């Protein structure tokens, strides 16, 4: 375990050095991330100007959820962007090399990219998070702080696990494009808003089938003790482990049918 983490850091560090050579990219991507997330906030603000409350959620509550998405997404992008390279790695034969190195193939894939735009997400998410906390007016007890820290530490792992799971479709689809997992990523964006506003089907999908809601909505309910299902947020670590296991399972199934590329 320690060796795995240490090697993971080594791989990411090497990618970081390589990425910093393209400094231009870093700024463009960060600004792009800031703009996309910022637009979302403007959108939220416009809605709440018209309707002050949605299902009992006020503007700053939703900003809090929103900031959690930005934070967890930022961490996932920064630390495990390699999941999105799966389609290329698997279907253009790059996996061959990975499979003959003495380090977990999945961890090699995950650490094969570092998404510097994650920093943009983190910066914006962090500021929104602090701003939201100042406005939502919860009483901070040591217990609540501990719950928040605990739950939030696991939230990014939910997204990483789901990224692995959906991107493993590359083994079956056999195209170097990530359209299919990206569709699910877009579905996951629905969890930027309180999922209680959706119909039951969407809610079940987002909380059970592909539990994207555990990267933001449920952790937020736990932190705020809001809504009837706030206890669910405490299950975030369980959801995270479940998603990671699913991802690993899919990757292993994929390796069994991996055909390399003719050469």
């Amino acid at each position: 375990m320690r060796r795995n983490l240490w090697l993971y850091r080594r791989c990411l560090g090497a990618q970081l050095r390589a990425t910093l050579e393209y400094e231009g990219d870093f700024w463009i991507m960060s600004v792009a991330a800031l703009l996309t997330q910022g637009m979302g906030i403007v959108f939220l603000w416009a809605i709440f100007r018209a309707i002050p409350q949605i299902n009992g959620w006020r503007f700053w509550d939703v900003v809090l959820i929103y900031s959690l998405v930005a934070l967890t997404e930022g961490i996932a992008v920064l630390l495990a962007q390699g999941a999105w390279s799966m389609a290329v790695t698997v279907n253009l034969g790059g996996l061959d090399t990975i499979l003959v190195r003495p380090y977990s193939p999945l961890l090699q894939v995950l650490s094969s990219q570092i998404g510097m735009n994650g920093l943009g997400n983190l910066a914006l998410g962090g500021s929104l998070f602090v701003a939201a906390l100042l406005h939502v007016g919860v009483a901070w007890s040591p217990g609540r702080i501990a719950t928040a820290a605990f739950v939030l530490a696991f939230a990014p792992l939910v997204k990483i696990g789901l990224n692995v799971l959906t991107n493993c479709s590359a083994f079956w689809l056999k195209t170097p494009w990530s359209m299919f997992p990206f569709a699910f990523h877009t579905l996951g964006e629905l969890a930027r808003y309180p999922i209680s506003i959706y119909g039951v089907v969407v809610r079940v999908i987002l909380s059970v089938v592909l539990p994207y809601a555990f990267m933001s909505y449920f952790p937020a309910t736990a932190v705020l003790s809001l809504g009837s299902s706030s206890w669910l947020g405490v299950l975030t670590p369980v959801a995270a482990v479940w998603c990671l296991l699913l991802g690993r399972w899919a990757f292993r199934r994929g390796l069994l049918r991996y055909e390399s590329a003719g050469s």
Partner: protein
Amino acid sequence: MARIEADDLRKVFRSPDKRPGLAGSLRHLVERRYSEKVAVDGISLRVDEGEAVAYVGPNGAGKSTTIKLLTGILVPTSGEVRVNGIVPHRNRVENARGIGVVFGQRTSLWWDLAVRDSLELLRDMHGLSTAEYWANLDRLVEMLGIGDLLSSTARRLSLGQRMRADLAAALLHDPPIVYLDEPTIGLDIEVKDRLRAFLRQIVAEGTTLVLTTHDLGEIEDVCSRLVIIDHGRIVHDGGLRQVIETYARERVMHVDLAARPVSLAGIATRLAGATVIEERDGLGVAVTFDPLAHTAGDVLTAIQAELQVVDLRIKEPAIEDVVRRVYAGQLIPGPDDSPDDSPDDSPVR
């Protein structure tokens, strides 16, 4: 000790039978028809420690697929593999510690990293101590002449430079087994020579080597065993020298003459079984003979008795000649004696 044991390995690729265009794709969704391609069709192979095996065959014969099965990259459709006593595709990390692999067409270096950074990452993955790392690296740098490549990014290396850096990456942990799949593709003569010398050295030091190539010249002085594969099956497996003695035994003596001879018939009658043909517009003669029937001395004496010799060369049979016969379909296994039963002498047809 057997380093590699493969038993009746098969690999079948299944590819969708899609008609071109969107209509074809949609139709495939409904019909789901596949065609199967048997790339490796029942290969059994045992390679002992320290053996150097040349694995040759025409394009599409299944060489790369076999290597991918032996290295654990692909899971066999059926059959069994053991390498260093473990099943490669079930225990990839453990397997990777004991092997070094180079695919000529593909780099194993990190594209955007300096070669040195790639090597250091591999050092950490293999868990090499600093002392081991430097000892191995120094040796590889010297043998492969890559000292001044270490600080370049893999992306910026020329093909030959990249190949040498790749070899260093594959051998950094001093693996007991090395697989090289067409390692000389696109290399110039000088680099090829250096690589060959290098391979001879690691084999002499006890490394087990499996080498696939189309550049047959390099097999002769590196490998001691030749495995020929075609259509996914082994058609020959035996000692390299024996193969040459059996299938490419004849030698050719080329002589240059001072003057055009009147007739060559005299030479032919002195050397039973040899063929004599005219070369260089009559100013030369080529005598093809079996060294077991006539010594080179006999042949020269016979020629000199008839003609005045200015210069001579003897051409040894090359492994190219053997394999060319296989390529031309002359050396294929009979229906009732499979190569597994008689690995050392497949019949000539």
